[in-house]
């Protein structure tokens, strides 16, 4: 079974999605249950990845290799290491609440909705598990299509503008990456990511390749100043779309930096680390301030995502500054540990917050903060979850949100007091925008008759938020198991990223 576990995880959801498409909307109950079973099956099947994971080495595990396009030496090659495996489990996990959350909410073409999410799940697993760059690129681009449809079909009033912006931004970034991949293929003779990592490249070559990767990944993360597509896409996307977008798709950017930029272009990364650190800190400080002024709940969480993802890029690129400042690589592993944990944690927390907003939106059909107030009076159980996730979003110790930020801040101090200083600003701004949101939406007296008529969580919503709450607290109280599976790969990555190719 281990022989083709990754393939099953990719193609089973896609096949289930295709089946649902064929069945159509004739029997919605069957569609829903089929989608749920497929999502749960994918989650269960992804667990052996974790339990069977060998933490002693950094080699690719659960490998599969079949010829794909022999003419171009492109292989259907899959495998996972400590960076991709947790992200795959996050993907299969987050699809489940998305399916459950849509249960009675999506009335327009439910079959196609579920199919889009299942197909996207398979493609996203493909992105994280591909060890062949062309295969990676295939999944990377294919993934855009279902998301494009999800926003475009089930989105809000300005969905056309948002989808176009989303698609153009991300597509524009990716084509340059394709050019870089082809260039390296010509030099290396095949598309294996491992060959690219071993490929000697001059500084000039590295700069160009780094720039191409940067365009692709920075848009996805998103980094300032190529972030403006994200708030628009989130605002227009349906709840499930926002959850997947925030929880998984943004991680593709972080994953790309770790998988491609650092090991393939280490010298260019070192040369441009100041730019990357500056952009990351701008994301933390500038975007934190912008988030403060948002009137739309989803926009606020979208901006908060950008600020939190700033810690991922900061952790990734500060390793060069650490070495430059101290002459030692001590602390580099911690920075990358922090970046990885931040990715997982942000997936859980931002997904949870978008689900919370979805709960409110389903009832009142408004995302405006001003339309709410005093929700706790009528939805006390919901309020508990919302406050918990909000506190997690502020990086409260004991929740997953703390772990990554703490590790990145204390590692960054090695590079410079001021980097740590600006990164730590998030303690204040993050608390300000998140808890101000909570104050205006959750607390206070009931502000309108529409709020007074709100009903508390139904069992379905309770299960969705409950399972996320358990994980958010679980990772916060005991992050060691998560770090244990990541660290051998991260140690290896530190070696690759700090070894000069010149």
């Amino acid at each position: 079974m281990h022989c083709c576990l990754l393939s099953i995880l990719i193609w089973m959801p896609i096949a289930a999605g295709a089946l649902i498409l064929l069945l159509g909307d004739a029997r919605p109950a069957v569609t829903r249950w089929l989608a749920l079973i497929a999502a749960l099956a994918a989650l269960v099947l992804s667990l052996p990845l974790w339990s069977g994971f060998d933490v002693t080495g950094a080699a690719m595990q659960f490998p599969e290799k079949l010829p794909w396009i022999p003419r171009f030496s492109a292989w259907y090659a899959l495998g996972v290491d400590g960076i991709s495996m947790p992200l795959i489990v996050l993907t299969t996990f987050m699809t489940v609440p998305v399916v459950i959350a849509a249960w009675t909410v999506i009335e327009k073409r439910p079959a196609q909705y579920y199919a889009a999410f299942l197909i996207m799940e398979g493609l996203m697993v493909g992105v994280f598990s591909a060890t062949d760059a062309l295969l990676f690129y295939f999944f990377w681009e294919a993934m855009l299509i279902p998301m494009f449809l999800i926003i475009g079909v089930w989105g809000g009033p300005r969905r056309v503008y948002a989808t176009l912006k989303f698609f153009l931004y991300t597509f524009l970034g990716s084509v340059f990456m394709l050019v870089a991949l082809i260039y390296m293929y010509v030099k290396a003779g095949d598309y294996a990511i491992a060959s690219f990592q071993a490929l000697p490249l001059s500084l000039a070559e590295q700069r160009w390749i780094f720039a191409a990767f940067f365009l692709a990944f920075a848009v996805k993360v998103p980094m300032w100043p190529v972030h403006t597509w994200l708030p628009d896409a989130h605002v227009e996307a349906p709840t499930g779309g926002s959850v997947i977008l925030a929880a998984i798709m943004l991680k593709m950017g972080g994953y790309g930096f770790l998988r491609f930029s650092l090991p393939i272009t280490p010298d260019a990364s070192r040369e441009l680390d100041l730019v990357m650190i500056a952009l990351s800190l701008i994301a933390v400080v500038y975007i934190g301030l912008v988030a403060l002024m948002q009137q739309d709940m989803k926009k606020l969480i979208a901006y908060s995502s950008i600020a939190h993802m700033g810690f991922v890029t900061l952790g990734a690129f500060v390793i060069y500054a650490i070495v430059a400042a101290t002459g030692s690589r001590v602390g580099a592993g911690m920075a990358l540990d922090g970046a990885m944990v931040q990715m997982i944690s942000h997936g859980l927390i931002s997904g949870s917050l978008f689900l919370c907003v979805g709960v409110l939106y389903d009832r009142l059909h408004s995302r405006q903060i001003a339309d709410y107030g005093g929700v706790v009076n009528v939805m006390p159980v919901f309020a508990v979850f919302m406050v918990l996730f909000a506190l997690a979003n502020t990086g409260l110790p004991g929740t997953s949100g703390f772990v990554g930020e703490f590790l990145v801040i204390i590692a960054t101090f090695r590079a410079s007091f001021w980097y740590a200083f600006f990164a730590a600003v998030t303690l204040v701004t993050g608390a300000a925008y998140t808890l101000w949101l909570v104050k205006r939406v959750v607390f206070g007296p009931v502000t309108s008759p529409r709020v007074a008529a709100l009903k508390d969580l139904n069992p379905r919503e309770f299960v969705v938020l409950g399972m996320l709450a358990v994980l958010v607290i679980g990772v916060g109280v005991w992050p060691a198991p998560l770090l244990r599976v990541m660290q051998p790969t991260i140690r290896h990555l530190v070696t690759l990223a700090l070894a000069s190719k010149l």
Partner: protein
Amino acid sequence: MNPTELIAIPLLPLAAALIAGLCGRWIGRAGAHSVTCLAVAAACALSLHVLWQLVWGGVPSFEGTVYTWLVSDGVGMQVGFLVDRLTALMMAVVTFVSLCVHIYTIGYMRDDPGYTRFFSYISLFTFSMLMLVMSNNFMQLFFGWEAVGVVSYLLIGFWYQRESAIFANLKAFLVNRVGDFGFVLGIAGIVYYTHSLDYPVAFAAAPRMAQAMLPFTAHTSVPALTLICICLFVGAMGKSAQVPLHVWLPDSMEGPTPISALIHAATMVTAGIFMVARMSPLFEYSDTALSLVLVIGATTAFFMGLLGVVNNDIKRVIAYSTLSQLGYMTVALGASAYGAGIFHLMTHAFFKALLFLAAGSVIIGMHHEQDMRRMGGLAKYMPITAVTCWIGALALIGTPLFSGFYSKDAIIEAVHESHRYGAGYAYWCVLLGVFITALYTFRMLFMTFHGAERFRQAQHHAADGAHDRHGDHGHEHEPHESPAVVWVPLVALAIPSVLIGALTVAPVLHGTFFGGAIFTRGAQAAHAAGEGVSAVRLALEGLAAPPFWLALAGVVTAWLFFLRSPSLADAAGRRLHALRTLLVNKYYFDWFNEHVIAALTRALGTVLWKGGDQVLIDGVLVNGTAQAVSRLGSATRRLQNGYLYSYAFWMMIGLAVLLGWFLAHA
């Protein structure tokens, strides 16, 4: 020491909090208060046992790991306990005051719809505070630090329908986060130099860090340990409400009175004091940091005390008193008299919790009234509350033989002997602060319990203003004594408020009670290890010292102005109009924060959003690029207009250019 026993101490309140919080609906109100009170009582008993073992049982300190939170880059981050005498003392104080507050809450919150939620929160608080004081490393310290902050946030906003309460709790959290911002940088600095988060490693490295210089700008560097200590102290300033991060504490009085006693007087706000004392092996190596501690503490002690003199809300007067007393403790730290600081922390925990709970009892008795101008003469109606409140007040102003006398005198004495930069200023602040303390304390006492009965004409005003809502909608309007469940904790706190100082002054202050837990260098160390003196002799000596006479003067002034002839107070207020305006407006700190800092932040956020994101990035870059492409398209479209003569013209031009190029290069 038995590790299981130590683990049980924080876990019992946590379990009780979870049971009361998650199963409140099923176990009911009685179930919720039973389970939490029992758990905290057990934690208190175990804490006293631990203290007994350490002090009289000859058991050595405990240091050990419970579990490994994570290991990153060789830095192990554990959850673990360090239980020495300092910790054990804190544990005993925390659990004892918490137990009193738990019992008191049964009466105070009797009719509140959030009854079970409240018990869940205060038990959770007890857990968090225990994790903070019992920690053996910075990670767990920060966990407890933030966790008590969150519970405080939840409790200040406990009555979430009140706009003022949810404003106050957000403010409290944010101001604390400013402190935590410094704190986390301090921790990062420790990790930078020691590659560890454990206290013993950090303490051992202190002399080395004292030599190190940290690059600050491109060409300058600063002494590393001083920077680290100042960062850590910024955290303490937030938690222990020192100027200018004190602004949240008076507003925190929006929370129910039991938590004002527990969190905002006795325990959480002293976390900063505890932390600096715990970090004494670091602070001792930085005179600059200690001078800052001294000056900040002295400023808080004197100037915040002054605010208590003009306030009319009984809880807020006590809150300003708390600020001032926290300033005293901070001054002690700055003068390297850590033992005296912790000693005052302990005595203050008892008498200040007592004063708050007595104020709560008054508020119940007055049917939600907090304005002292509508009280007076209550001693007749609430004798137990009045007597216990008097005891608390006498302890607070430092009456000889009462607990506060020993601790406050020790601080004043330590500052007097200190030669640290800023000690002169600090000495005058703490000395004059004694007069101020007595003045506001007895003003409060006289306005509440003595003099004319002003509550009858005030009854119809009771609907306006912010009042503690405890649900006691009594039908008779006469004030009345509170039920036993309320006054028993008052008595339980009154006893240590009187006795604890005299009983413990010799070992704690002049002996070697803290052993290795507190570290001092040089002259101060000699002072701490002074000769064994009797409590009575100290009290007799105190009668001849200036603090006693200053306190007496304060009491007399309060009597003259607020009991004998209140018209004098009005006249003085008119005469000192400018000062009074300054004090009533709390030195304009709130005004500055709201109209300058908050307003500027919001303006900056708006500018970055509307100007940066919408105009520059989306308008110019994104849509501008799209427009540029479209204009380029229109321009090139003009070239392909389908007219033959146009194509022929461009062909000829092209041919000419090509020929020219050839000829030039031929």
